[in-house]
């Protein structure tokens, strides 16, 4: 089957199976059922190794499927962290036992995953995290707090980065684990975001045990595992896996032109600017995709795309409300929701400032900032918020 046929077949399958015909049913149940069907049809883990339950195909098939799926909103949100981040990390860095145990159940939609890196005192500087994992016989015991954890309230498993040594510099005393989110020592508290939704959580660990078989990578080598996960995160954001088409986006040109006075030349010029910025980024993303297909790995340039998307999101919601005026901020106007939601893209997955650092350091090769935190033992370092 060539790529076009693959895409056509995928599209036909999606038309048959991705229709949202039971919106009143429990979304988690619906997601699990859909993932199981996706797995049986051979569209789950398209590029993942066959040995662990994937299809063993290439990025080309993955892209063909994404293209076919563009017009559908796949009900796989609760699996987005597992599929986009924790699963690929286990495939890359887990033991064979861990891959055997965890990868297939994820691809079949049987188990939901979350990712536990950020903490109240460790956001952009995630390596300064303070959650401790301490040796306890053959295993480990975890205490601490995590935050911004998407889908944790549904999760069976979490990929946890914890501090295992405070006597060494901060990057060198971290270890990665798989933690059982159903353990009674794990408390999940929903956090209400500024848009009023509760899609992420804060998590408390009180003496939660972890067997050593659930350690991912070597002791104190957790940072390199985390870098793998974060790379997958940025890729999955820019690839927009499972994202909608933007057809319903109230900040898009198609929506705004219907509700504003386009005979006003000032309005027209604002809409032209909106079009220019959209096309510029869309074409950049398409070029990155074509390069990937041609075997040129975008690497840190993906951070430029993520930065541009974040800025565009802020700009569009801001522009939409300014053009529509007072109606846009009352009575549940969609733009009201959009303007509340728009900062998210500039914060999650690395702030705009961090993206600029990455582009500057890794794409342009600029000299790094002098760092005081690379050589000092963690216990002597200032971390978090201090008066």
């Amino acid at each position, binding site marked *: 089957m060539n790529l076009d046929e693959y895409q056509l077949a995928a599209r036909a399958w999606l038309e048959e199976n991705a229709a949202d015909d039971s919106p009143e049913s429990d979304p988690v149940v619906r997601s699990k059922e859909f993932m199981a069907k996706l797995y049986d049809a051979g569209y789950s883990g398209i590029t993942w190794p066959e040995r662990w339950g994937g299809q063993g195909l290439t990025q080309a098939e993955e892209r063909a499927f994404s293209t076919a799926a563009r017009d559908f909103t796949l009900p796989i949100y609760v699996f987005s962290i597992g599929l986009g981040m924790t699963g690929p990390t286990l495939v890359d860095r887990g033991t064979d036992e861990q891959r055997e145990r965890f990868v297939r159940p994820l691809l079949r939609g049987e188990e939901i995953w979350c990712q536990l890196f950020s903490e109240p005192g460790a956001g952009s500087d995630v390596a300064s995290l303070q959650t401790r994992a301490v040796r306890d016989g053959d295993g480990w015991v975890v205490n601490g707090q995590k935050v911004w954890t998407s889908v944790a309230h549904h999760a069976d498993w979490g990929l946890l980065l914890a501090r295992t040594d405070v006597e060494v510099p901060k990057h060198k005393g971290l270890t990665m684990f798989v933690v059982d989110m159903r353990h009674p020592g794990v408390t999940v508290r929903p956090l209400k975001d500024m848009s009023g939704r509760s899609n992420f959580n804060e998590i408390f660990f009180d003496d939660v045990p972890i067997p050593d078989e659930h350690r991912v990578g070597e002791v104190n080598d957790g940072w390199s595992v985390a870098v793998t996960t974060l790379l997958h995160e940025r890729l999955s954001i820019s690839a927009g896996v499972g994202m909608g088409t933007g057809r319903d986006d109230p900040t898009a040109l198609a929506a705004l032109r219907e509700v504003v006075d386009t005979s006003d030349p000032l309005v027209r010029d604002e809409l032209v600017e909106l079009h*220019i910025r959209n096309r510029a980024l869309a074409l*950049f993303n*398409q*070029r990155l995709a074509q390069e990937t297909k041609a075997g040129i790995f975008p690497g840190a340039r993906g951070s430029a795309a993520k930065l541009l998307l974040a800025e565009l999101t802020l700009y569009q919601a801001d522009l939409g409300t300014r053009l529509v005026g007072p109606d846009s901020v009352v009575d549940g106007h969609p733009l009201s929701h959009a303007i509340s939601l728009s900062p998210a893209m500039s914060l999650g997955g690395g702030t705009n*400032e961090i993206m600029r*650092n990455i582009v*500057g350091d890794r794409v342009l090769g600029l*000299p790094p900032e*002098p760092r005081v935190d690379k050589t000092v033992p963690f216990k002597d370092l200032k971390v978090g918020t201090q008066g």
Partner: protein
Amino acid sequence: MKLVLSEEQRELRTAVRSFLAAASPLPKVREGYDREVYARLNGELGLSGLIVAEEYGGAGAGFAELAVALEETGAALLPGPFLSTVFATIALTEAADKELLSGIAEGRITATLATGPLDRVINGMEADVLLVPEGDVLTAVELDGPGVTRTPLETLDLTRGQASVRLDGASLRALGPVPGGLGDRLAVALAAEQLGVLRASLEAIVAYAKIRVAFGRYIGSYQGVKHKLADMHCKLEQAESIVRFAAWAADESPGELPQAAALAQAYVGRACFEVARDHLLLHGGIGFTWEHDAHLFYKRAKADEVLLGPPRIHRSRLAELLEL
């Protein structure tokens, strides 16, 4: 849609880039148009005939290749009538004048095109032939012929001259129809040059930020500088994507060309000037001096941005095409 260069296009880029680095480095650019350099550019690389049809002795290449070449001549701020000859060649698409096209392809003839009134014609002093659209008809006049007076203009851009041309009894030779979409194709060609100016400006300031020290640190290590450079890189990525798209549309998708061309001028023209400006500013005081090259890029970027008219025309064209 093709947004990534082919192997052959990358080879063309390398060849033009290394030729210009050796034959026309910036100190030489300041000396102005050099016929020797053009003779080699056309003889060794065949650049003047790149988009001339094979039957007239050209390479018959498309806009995708042309954009690669123009990006490099732009990055090098190559002085002389290269872009103007490209403009003229584009104008000759339907009025295929054999003598002119084969002369251009062989590098014997340089040309320019009136994109506005004759009192400011780019490279009017250097070009041999001026093409003037008279209504729907393209006409040509020998610039060193009788009845033609040309006076050099003092231009902001030190690397591309303009002349005021006065025709007083000169004979205008009718060549054929002015091709449809001429303005769009000129806009794409110019955007390719602007992409080169943008890229070279960014490369120059990135290189400087890696060696210039202030307060005991390389200036590129300060976020105040680094973040600006990162934003400039984002503009480069988007500008390149738009230029590839517009060149592809010019070659393969005429229906998309008008929007692509207006987008190219509206985005790339602005981005090029902004990056050239910030590259000058980030150099500090030295960037404001005559001896430093920063102002050459800054001035070319500004002259290019307004070459085809005040930039708002590209925006209002977009509004029109989007039926806003």
